[in-house]
C-alpha cells in the first residue's frame, strides 16, 4: 500500500463514484394481485477514475440501462449515492448535472427529434443553458459538427435525411458540445452496421483524448468493450459480479459468469458453430431472484453453500503490491474465485 504507484493512484481523482446504489421498482399491484418488487440495481459500488473508459457488460435485463438512467438523473435511486467529481447528485439540479454528464444513446433513429434540423438538435444544450449569443452558438455548432466528421451542409438537414452512422455522429456532437466531464454511452454502436461501428468507436476514442473525457461504456458486445475499455465491470441480475482491468477480465476471468460470457462470444471462424456455454436455461425471473448467489441455478461449479450464502464483492489479492491497490484491484463476487 505504501508503494509510490499506489500513492499516485490514490490521489487520482474519480470522475464517478457509485456507493451502494440501488433501484427497486414496484410492479403491478392492483385490486386482485399483490405488487411485486424488482431490484433492477442492487447495491452497486463502482469507481471510475478521471480519463478512463469503464466498460459495463451483462445480459439484457441485468440493470445496465437503469443504472445509466440513475446517473443521468432521469430516475431517482432507491438507495445509495452517486458522486460526480466528488459531489453527490441525488438531489442536484438537473441543469447543473447536465453540464457534467451527458448521454449517447443506443438507437440513433430514436435519439434525434425527427422534426428538428441538425443545427437545432446540436445547439439545444447551448440554448437551454443560455451559453453565448445565437451567433456564437451557431459557430460552436459548426465547429462541433466538423469535429465529429460531418459536412457543413448537415446542419440544415433533418435526421430523416441521414444514415445511422451520421445520426450517431450528431448524437455525439450534441452530447459533447457543452464539454461534459463524463459521458454515458449506452450501447452506442449496437444499432449500427458493423462497418460503421469501428468508425464511431474510433471517433469516441479520439474525442476522449481531445476533451479529456471519462466514459462509462455500457455494452453487451465484448469485442467492442475489449477495443475500448480500460476497466470492466460485469453485471448479473442487478449486481456487479466481477470488476477489474481489461487484461484481468479478458485474460483471467474469475467469476463463472464472466467466464461463460467470454466463452459465448461468437468467432468468425467457419464450422465452429454456436458455442455451448453450459449456462442452460435463460436468466431467472428478476422479481424472484434465486436465494444465495443469484447465479447458482446456472452455475457450472455451484455447491450447496451457493444457494444459501450470497457472496460479497471482495478484492482478490493478485500478488504484486501495485495490483492490490484500490484503483487497479480486481473484485469478484463468488465463493470459489
Amino acid at each position, binding site marked *: 500500500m505504501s508503494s509510490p504507484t499506489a500513492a499516485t493512484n490514490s490521489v487520482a481523482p474519480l470522475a464517478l463514484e457509485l456507493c451502494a446504489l440501488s433501484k427497486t421498482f414496484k410492479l403491478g399491484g392492483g385490486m386482485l394481485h399483490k405488487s411485486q418488487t424488482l431490484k433492477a440495481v442492487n447495491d452497486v459500488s463502482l469507481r471510475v477514475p478521471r480519463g478512463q473508459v469503464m466498460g459495463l457488460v451483462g445480459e439484457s435485463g441485468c440493470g445496465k440501462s437503469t443504472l445509466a*438512467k440513475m446517473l*443521468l*438523473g*432521469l430516475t431517482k435511486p432507491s438507495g445509495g449515492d452517486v458522486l460526480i467529481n466528488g459531489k453527490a447528485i441525488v438531489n442536484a*439540479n*438537473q*441543469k*447543473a*448535472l*447536465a453540464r457534467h*454528464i*451527458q*448521454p449517447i*444513446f*443506443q*438507437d440513433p433513429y*430514436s*435519439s*434525434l*427529434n*425527427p*422534426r*428538428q434540423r441538425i443545427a437545432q*438538435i446540436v445547439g*439545444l*444544450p447551448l440554448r*437551454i*443553458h443560455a451559453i453565448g449569443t445565437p451567433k456564437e452558438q451557431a459557430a460552436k455548432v459548426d465547429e462541433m459538427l466538423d469535429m465529429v466528421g460531418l459536412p457543413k451542409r448537415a446542419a440544415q438537414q433533418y435526421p430523416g435525411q441521414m444514415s445511422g452512422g451520421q445520426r450517431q455522429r450528431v*448524437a455525439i456532437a*450534441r452530447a459533447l458540445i457543452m464539454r461534459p466531464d463524463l459521458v454515458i454511452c449506452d450501447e452506442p454502436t449496437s444499432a449500427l452496421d458493423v462497418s460503421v461501428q469501428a468508425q464511431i468507436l474510433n471517433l469516441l476514442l479520439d474525442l476522449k483524448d481531445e476533451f479529456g473525457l471519462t466514459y462509462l461504456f455500457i455494452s453487451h458486445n465484448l469485442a467492442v468493450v475489449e477495443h475500448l475499455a480500460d476497466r470492466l465491470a460485469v453485471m448479473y441480475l442487478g449486481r456487479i459480479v466481477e470488476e477489474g482491468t481489461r487484461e484481468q477480465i479478458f485474460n483471467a476471468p474469475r467469476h463463472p459468469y464472466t467466464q461463460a460470457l467470454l466463452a459465448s462470444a461468437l468467432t468468425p471462424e467457419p464450422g465452429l458453430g454456436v458455442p455451448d456455454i453450459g449456462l442452460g436455461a435463460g436468466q431467472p425471473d428478476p422479481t424472484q431472484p434465486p436465494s444465495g448467489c443469484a447465479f447458482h441455478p446456472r452455475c457450472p461449479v455451484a455447491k450447496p453453500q451457493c444457494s444459501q450464502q450470497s457472496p460479497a464483492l471482495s478484492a482478490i489479492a493478485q500478488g504484486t503490491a501495485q495490483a492490490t491497490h484500490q484503483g487497479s484491484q480486481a473484485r469478484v463476487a463468488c465463493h470459489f474465485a
Partner: protein
Amino acid sequence: MAQILSPQVASEQHLVAHWQSRLFRSTLNNRSLAIGLLIIASLGIVALLAPWLAPHDPYLQNTANRMVPPFWHDTGSWTHPLGTDRLGRDYLSRLIYGTRISLFIGLVVALISGLIGTTMGVLAGYFGGRVDAVVSYLLTTRLAMPVVLVALAMASLIGGSMLTVTLLLGLLLWDRFAVVARSATQQLRDAEYVQAAQALGCPLPYILLREVLPNIAGALIVVATLEVANAILLEATLSFLGMGVQPPSPSWGLMIAEGKTYMFFQPWVITIPGCALFVLVLAINLLGDGLRDLSAPGGRNE
C-alpha cells in the same frame, strides 16, 4: 426470338403495371386531398366574401314572393336562382351566409376541443400514474354521455344560440383528441430524444411543446378534421331540433327544419341545404383522409 424474350417482356410489363398501380394509388390519395382542399377553399372564400357574393339580403322577407322554385323548375327565375323560402327570403343568399355559420362553428369547436383534449391527453401520456388515472376517469365519464342528449339538455337550460352551441360542443367533443394524444405521447415518452432533452435539464413546457407536440401533430390534425365535420353535423342537428342557432339566422340545419313541412311538395327546400351539408362534410373527410396518408411515415398508408 420473341418467345425467348417473352418472360423478360412479361416481367417488364408486370413492373410497369405495378409502377402504374402505385402511381394510380398515390394520385388517388393525393386526389382526395386535392378535391377536399379545393372544395373547402372555395367554400371558405364563399364564407369570407358572403356580402359581395349573395345576390340578396338573406334576412329580407317578401311575402308576395313566397316559395319560388329554383331556376331549373318551369316556374323558376334567375332573380332567385335557388328560389325563396316560406317567408320569401332568397335561398341562395341564405345558403351563402349559412356557410359562415357552419365553418365558424366547425373550426371554433375543433379549436376548443382540440386545446382541451390535447392538453389532457399529452399530460396523461407523459406523466402516467395518477394524472393518467384522473384523465382516464374524465374520459370514460365523458364517453358515457350521449353528446346530442347532453347538448340538447344543456341548450334547453341555457337557451340555444350560436355561442351556446359552440361552447357546448367545444366542451363535449374533446374525447378523441385526448385518446389520440394520450396514446401517441405514451409512445414518445420513452423515446431517446425525449430522454436526451430531460437529461439536458430542459424545462417541462419545452419538452412537451417542442419535443412531444410536433411529433404527435400529424395524428391530431387528422382528428381535428374529423371533429370539424362532426361539429358541423351536430350543429345542424341541434339547429334542426330547435336548440341550436336560432331563427332568423341562416343555419343549414335550421333551413332544413323550416323546410320539413314542405318536403313532399317542394322537396328542394330541404334538398339544397342537405346537399350543401353533405358536400362540406365529405370535403372535410376527404381532406382528413389525404392528410392521414401524407402523415404516415415514408408515404406508407397500410
